[in-house]
């Protein structure tokens, strides 16, 4: 008996809605593509408003088409970035040489290095070992298992992309839920587990420059525009109060909204124990990669400013290959090359907006009209970032907001350096919708979470995150030398 016809896709869904409704739905993408094109053409041909230079107008037209495509996802994010790289030289905003040299930004190579290091961690099994060790050590009661699971996800995302962590810990979470016989859609503990995975990775992901591409992207754009940057340690120092506060708040929200409804996790202990037994002792590869990771972290903290974060990351990658700890085939399995293309294009576009003066003009006609103090400006930008990221890719939000934020900084006399964390940190916090981030989507796909399980608690956590972030900006950042306003003169 055949279960699957040859040549026929295995899973098919027939859309039985009325055809006109399907047609309307299918018309969305072409419509958006046309809207983007129309925005580009209209901005190109209209008489430039006062204060907008011709070069800035062209840059604005490119920004408009990319804005439409990034927000709506009508094209893959990376293809929109490539479009920006095509349009910048062809419209004369930047020369082809300048445009493509921006693609070689340090941030792009730092992200590439971080991806390869994360690939080595996953490929050798060290990341799974760390996860299992934490759970084995701390997770013996329902409460401690949940808490250690939440913190473990956050901790792992300090060193690896949050998406990679979610993808790695998801099978473990599913297995724990299965052996604990948590019924889908009913188990409060099941919901809490998957939410702990999704939120833990996101909160941990903003702690360092390794948790995702947002922070390196923001730094790349900052560096291209102002020549300033952050060291690995400085960024972590700026982010940690928000991370700590969100870990506490996230935990409280999870256990208040999803009370623990099981008495024992003994069956999960067996699973974790079995996995630990199967892994055996750390292999030579694991130990070597662990040492290289520790050395890289130390180098980033100690010599990041002197040698550059990307150089250290690339150096670590070379060392890994020197010792034969990873193959190039293994790298290709894990590295998302499309993201690198996306960042290259976004940096080039951001730089074009700043060099042409378009970002200052955008700032003058948007935020400047409603916000009258630097702190109000920051409150608005962080609110935009945290709301947009619920429905958009984190990196796309950074790509959109960062050039505008730099223009606003110029207008309000705000230190542009502060704008990198002001944009990048809130843009990494999407707690309410499955589409906000792959971590949320993965958790939602488990079948344990319903949309309303994420909406209410997620919105509360978003509100807390926004409030805490602004408090951190107001009271903590000045203590570490991150002042909002440029000193007089």
């Amino acid at each position, binding site marked *: 008996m055949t279960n699957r*016809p040859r040549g026929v896709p295995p899973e*098919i*869904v*027939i859309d*039985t809605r009325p055809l006109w409704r399907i047609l309307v739905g299918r018309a969305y993408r072409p419509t958006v593509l046309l809207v983007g094109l129309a925005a580009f053409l209209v901005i190109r041909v209209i008489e430039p408003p006062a204060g907008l230079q011709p070069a800035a107008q062209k840059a604005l037209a490119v920004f408009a088409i990319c804005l439409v495509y990034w927000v709506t996802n009508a094209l893959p994010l990376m293809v929109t970035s490539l479009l920006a790289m095509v349009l910048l030289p062809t419209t004369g905003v930047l020369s082809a040489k300048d445009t493509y040299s921006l693609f070689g930004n340090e941030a792009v190579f730092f992200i590439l290095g971080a991806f390869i290091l994360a690939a080595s961690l996953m490929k050798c099994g060290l990341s799974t070992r760390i996860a299992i060790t934490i759970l084995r050590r701390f997770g013996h009661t329902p409460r401690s298992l949940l808490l250690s699971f939440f913190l473990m996800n956050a901790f792992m995302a300090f060193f690896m992309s949050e998406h990679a962590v979610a993808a790695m810990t998801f099978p473990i979470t599913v297995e724990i839920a299965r052996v604990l016989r948590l019924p889908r859609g009913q188990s409060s503990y099941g919901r809490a587990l998957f939410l702990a995975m999704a939120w833990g990775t996101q909160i941990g992901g903003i702690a360092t420059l390794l948790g995702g591409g947002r922070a390196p992207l923001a730094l790349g754009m900052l560096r291209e525009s102002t020549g300033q940057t952050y060291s690995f340690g400085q960024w972590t120092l700026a982010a940690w109060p928000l991370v700590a506060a969100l870990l506490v708040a996230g935990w409280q929200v999870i256990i208040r909204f999803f009370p623990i409804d099981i008495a024992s996790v003994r069956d999960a202990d067996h699973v974790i124990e079995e996995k630990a037994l199967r892994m055996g002792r750390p292999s030579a590869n694991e130990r070597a990669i662990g040492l290289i990771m520790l050395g890289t972290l130390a180098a980033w903290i100690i010599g990041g400013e002197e040698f550059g974060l990307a150089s250290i990351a690339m150096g670590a990658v070379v060392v890994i290959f020197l010792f034969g700890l990873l193959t190039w085939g293994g790298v290709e399995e894990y590295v998302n090359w499309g993201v690198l293309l996306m960042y290259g294009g976004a940096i080039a576009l951001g730089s074009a907006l700043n060099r042409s003066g378009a970002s200052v003009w955008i700032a003058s006609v948007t935020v400047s009209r409603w916000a009258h103090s630097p702190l109000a400006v920051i409150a608005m930008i962080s609110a935009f970032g945290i709301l947009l990221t619920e429905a958009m890719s984190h990196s796309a939000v950074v790509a959109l907001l960062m050039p505008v934020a730099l223009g606003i900084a110029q207008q309000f006399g705000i230190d542009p350096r502060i704008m990198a964390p002001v944009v990048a940190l809130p843009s990494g916090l999407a707690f309410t919708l499955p*589409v906000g981030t792959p971590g949320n989507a993965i958790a939602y796909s488990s079948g344990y979470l319903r949309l309303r399980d994420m909406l209410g608690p997620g919105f509360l956590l978003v509100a807390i995150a926004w409030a805490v972030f602004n408090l951190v900006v107001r009271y903590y950042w000045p203590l570490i030398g991150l002042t909002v306003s440029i000193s007089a003169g």
Partner: protein
Amino acid sequence: MEPVHLKLELAVHGARLDAALAERIGRGAGPSPARSALDVVLPGEVWVGVPIVDTPTPFVLAAEGKGACLLRHDGADQASSRIGVRVATPPRYYQRRTSRGTLMSTIATVRAGQLVISPGAPCGYGLSGAPCRFCVEGARVEVERDEASVANVIEVVRAAFDEGVAQHVYFNTALFDPEDGGIAFLAPYIEGVRRHFDTLVVAQVHPPRSTAWVDRTYAMGVDALSYNLEIFDPVLLGRHCVGRARYIGRERYLDALAHAASIFPSGTVWSDLVMGLEPPESTLAGIEALTAKGVVPVASIVRGETPLPEPTAIAPVLTELYRAVKRRGINMGWVRDLALGITPLEARQFAGDGARLAVTLQQLTRFRLGALATRNLSRFRRRLRVRRVSESFDSARL
């Protein structure tokens, strides 16, 4: 006499073949794949499979110039009426062999302008010793024959299309696999035909256990689908259609037909109900049940050795056949050109309704442009309706 009345009369009484016509169409000059019945086109493009008999019958099919005519004798020696008809001559490709040496006519035959392809044995119930009692085809199946390869089938379809003897491809299968109803077996053939030819594909298979297979049937490119229940009355179904009742059961037919009707375009899912093997009330109940699910009932006049009831006895059933389909708003234009069945649109003549709009639309699809539009609309609809699960994940940006 209306063509559909004549169709019924011809199906009941059969016709004799005059020697000149027999010689011209090659009947009696060696084996022919459709020896028992001769496809004839009556005025109004009404197809009928006329049983050729030696017994007394009022009808004679005769040569007339380069064409043919149907003579009707009403007891006297003189013909009381003469009707010009077209007689389907055996296509030339019947005599050809595929590149692997298989006689093409063993792979596909032409029935009423449709290329009927049976890549395996024609009837699985026959193979398992449980054919329908009225079915000549099933009764003569004794051994399982080799499956035709996809390449061979494509070769035969190309030969038939090049000769211009068929417009659609009609697949059927012997398999009544309990899981997929035989469509999995046909899938590579259907895929091959769709890849090579711009044509409509019709499939006559058995109802699968899971409705997911119905979805896949549509997704793989089948434009019209039939699960033939044959008899509505469950007791008589068990008596006449042993295989259907034993291996599948009436309820699965009805469930699968209902699901298919919700997936396929209106009027493209049909089921035969054999006339006269069950009481008229039972056939009427079957018509009502099928049309309520959006399925087109077809009054089958395939009877094997069992004589059809007199036309006057089944006229009320045919009247209701048309009226029920019209009442439910089911498209009547799709199911057409059935030599061995009366379609609802043909049955309009029993109801005394011209159904001009439906007839005009159906006629339009016979022209090249109309057929092209039908094929493209069918493809476009499939593109809109069929979603793969992976696409849903893509949209969730997983």
